[in-house]
Structure formats: C-alpha cells, structure tokens
C-alpha cells in the first residue's frame, strides 16, 4: 500500500516537474513570438501570480503546441456580493481568459481580483494603471481558504486524537501525540509561563497553542510542492494580528490602562507631566497599534520573502540553462528551502512569543518597573 503510494507520488512529482520546465520553455518561445516578453518577465509574473491567492486550485499548468494554456487542478466556488449573493464555479472564468456571465452581469478575473465589466470585458485604467472598474465584494472559497480548512481539519484531528489518547491511555500520549506533546509543553512552559506569569497564563493558552500550530502548519504547507502562500498573505496576518490586539486589550487590567494614559505614574507631579504627556501619551497609544502591526508585517514579509527567494532560485535554473548554473541554483534552492523549514518554525514561534509578551503586559498587575524593563529588553 505504502509502496504504491510512494510510486504514484514520485510519478506525479516527475510529471509535475517535467511539465513545469516544459511549460516555461514553451511559454518563452510562444510569448517571445506573440508578445515579445522575455523569460525573466515571465518568471517574475509567475512568481507574482504564485504569491497571490487564486480562485482555483491549480496544481500546475502548461501550454500546448497551438498556444493554448492547459491547467491541471480543480475549480473552486466563487461567491460574490453584487446586489445579492451570487455563487458559481470558478471554471467559468477559465483562469481569467473568459468572462463569467451571471444574471446578465459580466465579471472578469484580473490579477486574482474580480471586476464587473461590460460584455466585452474592457478594463479601464487610471493614470497609475489601477483598474477603475467596479470591484465586487468577493467572499469566494479561494485556494488559501481551502488550505485554511485543510489545516484546520488536520489540527482538529491531530489534537482531539491526542486528547482522546490521554483519556484512553491513563495520561500518556500515544502515536503522533508523543511528538506534539513536548511542543505543547514547550509553548506552555517556555512561551506562556515566563511571559504572562504563573497565575494568568492559563486563559491565554488556547489562543497561543492554536496560533502557534496554525502558523507553523501553514508555513510548512507553503514549502510543499503545492506551495500555497497562506501565511504570506496580508489578509491572513492582519486577521491574526487583530485577534492578538483584541485579546491584549480586552483582557487588559486597570494597571495596564493606567500605564497607557499615565506612563510616569507618581514619579512626577501633575504640572510636570502636562508637557511630557502631550508627546508621551500619543506614543503609548500608538504603541498599542504598532505592536500588532509589527506582528503582521513580520510574518507577512518573512513568508513572502522566503517564497520569492526560493522561486527566484528555481527560476534561475531556466535562465542559466547550463550544466554549471542550473545545478548551482538547484543547490542554493535546496539550501534555502532547508532554511525555510527553520524559518517556518521560527516565525510561528516569534508570533506566539510576542503575542504572549503583549498578553503579559496587559495582564500584569502592580509591577510597573518590571514592565519597563521588559519593554526595554524587547
């Protein structure tokens, strides 16, 4: 069973890689003839396309001899809000090549975004080359949403089975739980406890654990040949950071808020504070926003950059096309992907760690000196 699975996997991998190189070479010829695009632009666009969310789950694509693009994958449901909810399959767009005609309206997929157009599919641009067509509210189940659902189901299955194994086995994990239990304990003992404190860490544990494994698993999925760039998508990181922000401020103690609006406390008389506070209080309040903002940018930029570097190095193989250059860039790509495995874990750790740190600030009581030290150290 396992052997046949492995064989099939290898077959698919060879096919995918073969098609990939074939597609790019063919594309180059085709595009050169038709639009005058060179290989570099082609690769750049491919990377750009990969980094963005997509409305269908394509595994790979290639171009036929007659110049027709072929995509292997499956379409995903499109849900848009444009005078009422409209649901249809993404196959209607044919990967952006045709218009979707729904209830007499025409929609066009342009750079992974859906625009309302006329029957000819014209897209009007302003001076800065931004489309001026009406953008519709797009709640489609995109590739990233599919990956989120898959990851969520995987996590649910993994951790509920770990929880069950405790009940069945008298408090001792079995199977894959033996690998995950130390990680859960690490999050508890080395992330939550020292940053939040022995008394209050418990109520933050579910969020910290969920966020840690969610980011880690999605980062790892991003490194598989599927290469779905979920955690490198700004919408995802914004959502995660907003949750951290909300939890931080909703669980903030009186001391925490007092510190926001009265950072110097009793160390100065009121008339001394007035001038300082005109500057200090806005900075403190800005800090509230900057903390989660740094979280979202850090995760986004790291994952985005990792994917760009990795894909550029793979792309270099097709630019060099020599016996020296291609193996070299392959070696580099291999080394970088090893580093990316580390980065995947590291970014999950940093996001969890900093969230825990912010929760720690918010739930701290009567320890202002400590708070300052921690902030300086951080």
């Amino acid at each position, binding site marked *: 069973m396992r052997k046949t699975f492995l064989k099939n996997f290898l077959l698919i991998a060879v096919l995918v890689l073969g098609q990939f190189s074939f597609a790019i070479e063919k594309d180059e010829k085709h595009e050169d003839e038709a639009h005058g695009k060179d290989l570099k632009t082609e690769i750049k666009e491919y990377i750009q396309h990969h980094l963005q969310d997509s409305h269908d789950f394509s595994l790979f694509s290639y171009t036929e001899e007659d110049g027709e693009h072929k995509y292997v994958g499956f379409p995903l449901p499109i*849900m848009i809000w444009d005078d009422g909810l409209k649901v249809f399959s993404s196959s209607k767009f044919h990967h952006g090549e045709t218009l979707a005609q729904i209830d007499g309206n025409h929609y066009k997929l342009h750079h992974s975004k859906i625009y309302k157009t006329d029957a000819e599919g014209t897209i009007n641009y302003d001076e800065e080359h931004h489309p001026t067509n009406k953008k519709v509210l797009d709640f489609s189940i995109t590739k990233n949403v599919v990956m*989120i659902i898959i990851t969520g189901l995987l996590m649910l299955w993994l951790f509920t089975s*770990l929880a069950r194994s*405790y009940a069945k086995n008298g*408090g001792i994990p079995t199977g894959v739980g033996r690998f995950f239990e130390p990680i859960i304990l690490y999050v508890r003992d080395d992330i939550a406890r020292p940053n939040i404190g022995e008394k209050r860490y418990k109520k933050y544990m579910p969020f910290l654990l969920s966020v840690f494994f969610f980011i880690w698993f999605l980062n790892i999925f991003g490194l598989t040949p599927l290469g779905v760039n979920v955690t490198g998508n700004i919408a995802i990181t914004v959502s995660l950071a907003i949750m951290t922000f909300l939890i931080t401020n909703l669980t903030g103690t009186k001391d925490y808020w007092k510190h926001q609006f009265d950072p110097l406390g009793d160390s100065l008389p009121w008339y001394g504070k007035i001038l300082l506070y005109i500057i200090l209080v806005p900075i403190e309040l800005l800090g509230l926003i900057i903390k989660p903002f740094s979280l979202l940018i850090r995760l986004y930029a790291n994952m985005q950059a990792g994917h760009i570097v990795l894909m550029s190095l793979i792309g270099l193989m097709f630019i060099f096309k020599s016996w020296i250059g291609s193996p070299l860039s392959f070696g580099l790509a291999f080394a970088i992907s090893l580093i990316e495995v580390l980065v995947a874990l590291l970014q999950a750790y940093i996001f969890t760690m900093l969230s825990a740190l912010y929760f720690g600030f918010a739930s701290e009581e009567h320890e202002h000196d400590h708070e300052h030290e921690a902030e300086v150290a951080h």
Partner: protein
Amino acid sequence: MGKLLEEFSLGLFFWQTLLFSLLLFLLWRFAWKPILKAVSDREDGIKDALAAAEDAKKEMQNVTADSEKLLKEARAEREAMLKEAREIKEKMVSDAQEQAKAEGDKMIKQAQAAIESEKKAAVADIKAQVANLSVDIAEKVIKEELSDKKKQLKLVDDMLGDIKLN
C-alpha cells in the same frame, strides 16, 4: 503600503477570521482543555508521588531518630541509676562509718568517765582508809606513848617547845 492595501482581500480576511475563530473554539473545547488538564493532572500526580516519597523518607528518619533517642534515654537512665546506687552505697558506708565512730567515741567517753569516777571513788576510798589507818596508827602510837608518866610529860614539853618556837 499601497501595494499592501491592493493585496489585502476582504473576502480572505473574512474567511480567515471566521474559520480561525471556529478552529480556536473547537480546539479549545475538544483539544487544548483536555490536553492541558491531562498534562497538569499527570504533573500533579508526579509531584504528589514525589512529595509522598519525601514524606515517607522523613517519616523513616523520624522513626530512626526516635529509636535512637529512646536508646540514648535508656542508656542515660541506666547510667543515672547506677550512679545513684553507687552514691547510696557510698553514703550508707560513710554513714555507717560515722555512726560507728560516733558510737565508739561515745563508748570511749563513757568508759573514760566511768574510769574517772571509779578512780575518784578509789582515791576517796584510799584516802578514807589512809585516814583511818593513820588515825588507828596514831591512836596506837599515842596509846603507847602515853603509857608512862615520863613520856607524857616529855611530850607536853616538846609540844610546848614547838609552840615557843612558833
């Protein structure tokens, strides 16, 4: 920043928030809560077991210490009893000695007193006998002396001569 805003997709944000909240709730309810509880229960169990072992060890030490203390006390008691007995013996001996000495002294004194009084009586007796004897002798002597007239006159003359001399 403009590029970031361009990239931001409200739909994806919506799905991520919804799905992650759902995931968080489900994991909280069905995974993290039982897992963390099981882990902390296990840790508490280990802690309790260790504490119990420590207690047992302390108990053992206490028992040993107690028996040692008892042994020491018994030994000290025996020592004390022996010492007391020795003291009593010594006291009894010395008391007996003292008593005997006092008794002896007393007896000696009594004997001495008796001897003294006997001696005195004897001396008085001897004195009386000597006096009687000497009176008797004197009587006999006088009787003999005064048996003729010449001798009586001579005595008177001697006596008178003594008086004159005086």
